[in-house]
């Protein structure tokens, strides 16, 4: 089988398209590169969705934590404390077990005039269950970063806005929010990298891979187990992760320059 054939039959294997059986013996370098790369689709899927959805939840959490109203402040604080204080690994297990216990058939919700059934069986599948876990996790960490940034917005900026008669809403959208993003961005970049790396835990440790559709680490450890040779699959997956990490740094660096373009640079 030429390398091109391998690419067509295994390139999308992780999402269930292509050859059903994984290679069993005579693993070529091409097999390993293609299958592990195919698994990266899942890592990217989890990272992109969890980060982009988590961002909005994180902003609300940070505002809640910063609020004068105890009704918002205490729940937001508690959520951030639990997420930041416990290992992601335990969170995966906990949420998986919790979702398994939810009735598989779905829930009937009676809205009075209409009865709808909520499908819950998807929750035990990685594409939704693990995504929810990663979403909650990144929201907790990011909220803490954003909260710290909200706290360090220069007082003078807010006072100046008040002095020229801006409304609270205007102050938030024109002063607080942009400044918060600008101050938080370097830490947020780190969090994005950490979350991307955390996606490697999904299939490997908690959510079972269905029909051997797994992420890159799932395939890498498959090869390492089959060949007793860790020196090929793990460096391959490392190269994939390094390239995507550099991509994240590049993208976030671009945003960072945009956020800071009005700030006098001292270089």
């Amino acid at each position, binding site marked *: 089988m030429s390398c091109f054939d391998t690419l067509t039959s295994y390139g999308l294997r992780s999402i269930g398209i292509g050859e059903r059986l994984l290679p069993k013996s005579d693993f070529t370098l091409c097999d390993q590169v293609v299958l592990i790369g195919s698994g990266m689709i899942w890592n990217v899927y989890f990272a992109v969705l969890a980060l982009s959805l988590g961002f909005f939840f994180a902003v609300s959490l940070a505002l809640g934590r910063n609020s004068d109203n105890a009704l918002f402040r205490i729940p937001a604080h508690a959520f951030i404390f*639990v997420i930041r*204080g416990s*290992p992601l*690994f335990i969170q995966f297990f906990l949420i998986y*077990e919790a979702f398994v216990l939810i009735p598989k058939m779905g829930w009937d919700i009676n809205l009075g005039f209409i009865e709808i059934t909520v499908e819950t069986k998807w929750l035990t599948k990685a594409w939704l269950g693990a995504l929810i876990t990663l979403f909650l996790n990144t929201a907790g960490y990011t909220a803490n970063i954003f909260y710290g940034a909200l706290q360090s917005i220069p007082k003078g900026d807010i006072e100046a806005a008040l002095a020229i008669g801006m409304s609270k809403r205007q102050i938030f959208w024109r002063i607080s929010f942009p400044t918060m993003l600008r101050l938080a961005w370097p830490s947020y970049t780190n969090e994005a990298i950490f979350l991307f*790396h955390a996606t490697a835990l999904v299939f490997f440790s908690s959510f079972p891979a269905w029909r051997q559709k797994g992420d890159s680490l799932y395939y890498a450890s498959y090869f390492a187990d089959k060949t*007793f040779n*860790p020196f090929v699959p793990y460096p391959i997956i490392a190269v994939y992760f390094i390239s995507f*990490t550099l991509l994240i740094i590049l993208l976030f660096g671009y945003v960072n320059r945009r956020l800071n373009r009005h700030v006098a640079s001292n270089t």
Partner: protein
Amino acid sequence: MFEYCTDPKLIEGFQWWSCYLSNGKHLNFYFSFLVVLSLLALTVPFILLFGFTGALARRASFTPLRWFGTIYTSMVRGVPDIIFFLFVPIAMDQGIEVIRHKIKCSDWSESIRQGNDFVVCTAAKMPLSSSPQWVHETYGFMLATIAFAIVFGAFAANTIHGALGAVPKGQLETGAAFGMSPRQIFHRIHLPQMWVYALPGLSNLWMILIKASPLLFLLGVEDIVYWARELGGSKTARFAYPHGDWRLGYFLFLLVFYLFLTWASEKFFDRLMHRLSRGQNTAASMA
């Protein structure tokens, strides 16, 4: 544990619980908490050692050494720690066995890698297949400790490198003006002052280390996650203490354990920071 526990089928309520929570497997479960805590305690000196070595290598004037330091400290930024935890123990295990194979069985003609197999002579097995179970477990635990130390040592090296750079230049120049040798400056001025700059990074690292400790489970160590899954899984009536699927409860208990551990560490580091900041010209010492 207690006398009335001889036949658990006959008791209920408080007595059942007291027997259930003190049976042999639960004692193993409690012991595994010590395993996790001892892993944390054992790795710290190694992490600091690797951290210092990495940081000093990055500052070295000898170029290849500096490259090595830079590569070592930057690799953990690009690759997930879990991949190192999987790679390092098996790579080290094979490395040790190859070396032992070369020494002990030099007359062996076949190659070690035969297709998909990794074959060394019996005498080169590490640990020997005849050794007792606890040797195997300790060996596995040791490999896990080294994997943790390598990964977190690289993180620590980043922090220490930054902290060494953060000590005000004037302090070092004053030392030089007094005629101190570079070695004296390093030991008497640079190193003692570095700690206060390194502490926020190192305390953060400790938190990450705590939260990485359940990954021991993936390395085959019988840690708290292993026992939580083992004990929580539903038990049929054939077992002495039948119950349904209680894994959620056990994992909630682990969650609380970790929350307490991180909370207590945070309090501890706050105090330490306060102490170390005495006499330092930083914002923390003014509070």
